[in-house]
C-alpha cells in the first residue's frame, strides 16, 4: 500500500502547488487556507470577500463533485470523540490566526519563497504536532 501512497501524495501535492501558483499569478495572493477563511469570519477580509468565497467554494465543491461522480470518497479515519474534535478545532482556529498562517500559507507558500517566518512556523507547528502524538498517543494512549 505504501508504494502507491507516495505517488498519490506527490501527484496530489503537485495539484496543491498548482492551486497556489494560480492564486499567486492570477490573483496576486498567497494561498493560505486559514487566512482566506479567517479573513471572511473576522471581517478583516471584507474588501475581497468574493474571491475568498470563490476559493473556498472550489475547495469544498470540487472534492464533493469527485466523490459524487466516482461514487467513492476517501477514508478520513476521523475520531468520534466530540471533545477532541472541539478542542482541536478551537486550537487550530485560534493558533493559525494568531500565527497568521497554517500548512498551506506558512508551509507551502512560505517555504517555497524561503521566508524565514514560514520556515520557522512550519518547524514549530510540526514539532508541536509531533510532541502531541508522542505524549497523547505513545505515552498516554488517549488519541
Amino acid at each position, binding site marked *: 500500500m505504501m508504494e502507491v501512497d507516495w505517488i*498519490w501524495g506527490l501527484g496530489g501535492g503537485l495539484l496543491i502547488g498548482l492551486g497556489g501558483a494560480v492564486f499567486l499569478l492570477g490573483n496576486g495572493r498567497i494561498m493560505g487556507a486559514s487566512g482566506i477563511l479567517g479573513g471572511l469570519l473576522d471581517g478583516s477580509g471584507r474588501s475581497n470577500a468574493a474571491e475568498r468565497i470563490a*476559493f473556498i467554494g472550489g475547495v469544498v465543491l*470540487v472534492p464533493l463533485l469527485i466523490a459524487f461522480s466516482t461514487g467513492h470518497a476517501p477514508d478520513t479515519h476521523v475520531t468520534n470523540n466530540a471533545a477532541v474534535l472541539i478542542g482541536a478545532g478551537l486550537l487550530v482556529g485560534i493558533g493559525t490566526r494568531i500565527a497568521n498562517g497554517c500548512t498551506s500559507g506558512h508551509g507551502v507558500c512560505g517555504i517555497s*519563497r524561503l521566508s524565514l517566518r514560514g520556515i520557522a512556523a512550519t518547524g514549530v507547528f510540526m514539532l508541536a504536532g509531533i*510532541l502531541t502524538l508522542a505524549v497523547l498517543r505513545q505515552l498516554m494512549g488517549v488519541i
Partner: protein
Amino acid sequence: MLRILSALCAGGLFGTGLMLSGMTDTAKVQGWLDIFGNWDPTLAFVMGGALIPMAVAWRLTAGRRPAAGGSFPAAPHQELDRRLVLGSVLFGAGWGLAGLCPGPAMASLSYNGWQGLLFFTAMACGMMAAPWFSRHLDRAAANA
C-alpha cells in the same frame, strides 16, 4: 470576474490535491507526526510536490503583475515574534490532536461526516475569537 474564476480554479486544484494526496485522511497526517509510532512519510511527498510549482510561481512574479490585476505580495518580513511561535504551538497541538488543518478540514467537509462538521465549526469559532486573543497577547506584551 477573472479574479473570481481564478480563485475558484485555485481552490478546486487545492481541494482536489488535498483529497487525492491522502491529506484528508487523519490517519496519514497523524501518522506523519507519530514519529515514535507507525510513521507515515506521505506528507513529505505531498509537501515536496506542492513546493515545486510554488517555487516556480514565485520566480515568475519577478517583473510581472498578477493576471487579474493588482500587485504581488510584498517581500515577507523576517522577524520572528511571539505571536508566530505561540500561534504555531497552539495550531500544531490541535493539528496533532485531530489530524486536521484548515485546508483539509474544508476539502473533506462533504465526506467527513458530523465529525468533520464539528471540527470545522469549532475551528471557525476559534478563528472568530482569535482577534480577541491577539489583542490580549499584545497587551500582556506591553505590560511585561
